């Protein structure tokens, strides 16, 4: 799935992945998507929780080679 914006949060620890995504989404239009990849274990629950609480939709989530991938659509 091709996203409009990509956030590479690999190597960053809590709380930076959530903060990077929030900053990216701020500059996006409604309906656009952002793909995030992170390695912080906390991100696995933090990013879906953030997306849900902010009313954005988590379109995709998978793990690959110890990296956590997410695609979020801005509401």
């Amino acid at each position, binding site marked *: 799935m091709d996203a409009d914006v990509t956030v590479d949060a690999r190597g960053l620890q809590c*709380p930076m992945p*959530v903060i990077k995504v929030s900053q990216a989404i701020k500059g996006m239009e409604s309906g656009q998507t952002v793909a995030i990849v992170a390695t912080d274990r906390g991100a696995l629950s933090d990013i879906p929780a953030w997306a849900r609480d902010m009313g954005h939709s988590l379109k995709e989530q998978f793990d690959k080679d110890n990296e956590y991938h997410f695609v979020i659509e801005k509401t």
Partner: protein
Amino acid sequence: MTTLDQSPEAEVQAEDETPTAEKMVLVAASGDLDKAWPVMILATTAAAYGMDVTVFFTFWGLSILKRPDAGITGDDWRQRMMSAFSGGSTDGLKLSKLNFGGLGAKFMQDLADEKNVASVQELLELAQDMGVKLWPCGMTMDLMGLEESDLIPGLDTPAGAGSAISLMKEASINLFI
């Protein structure tokens, strides 16, 4: 006047802005590194949640806001003595346990660097960029002999317990750390 509310500008504004962002208030009462860190982590994360965040710094929490070059502060000998031994600025914060004269704090900072954990200083700057309000407590500044010029720039005007309570009454998250 009701006509004010019905002006086109008011309508546009109401549509554009989130009417009332949820509020979070943190009271940072400790100058320990291991307390300052979670304060700044929670403040930046709540800002990422679109919350209206205020951190109220009181007593030793003011150490976090001290300028690195503030030196020994205060006029009274007791204030100066406290300042000399309390450390200050984000670089000089101590661990609440296992500090070993600053060695423990240094180990913790080094580990954080190695593991790419954002430092208190980085989070503090990020918090300011994200619009987190940083309020030094006016009374404790006076008690400890701290001037606004001893603190980092970009802070809000020193405030008191009344302002803190007024905000906390409206906030959905209030934490004393």
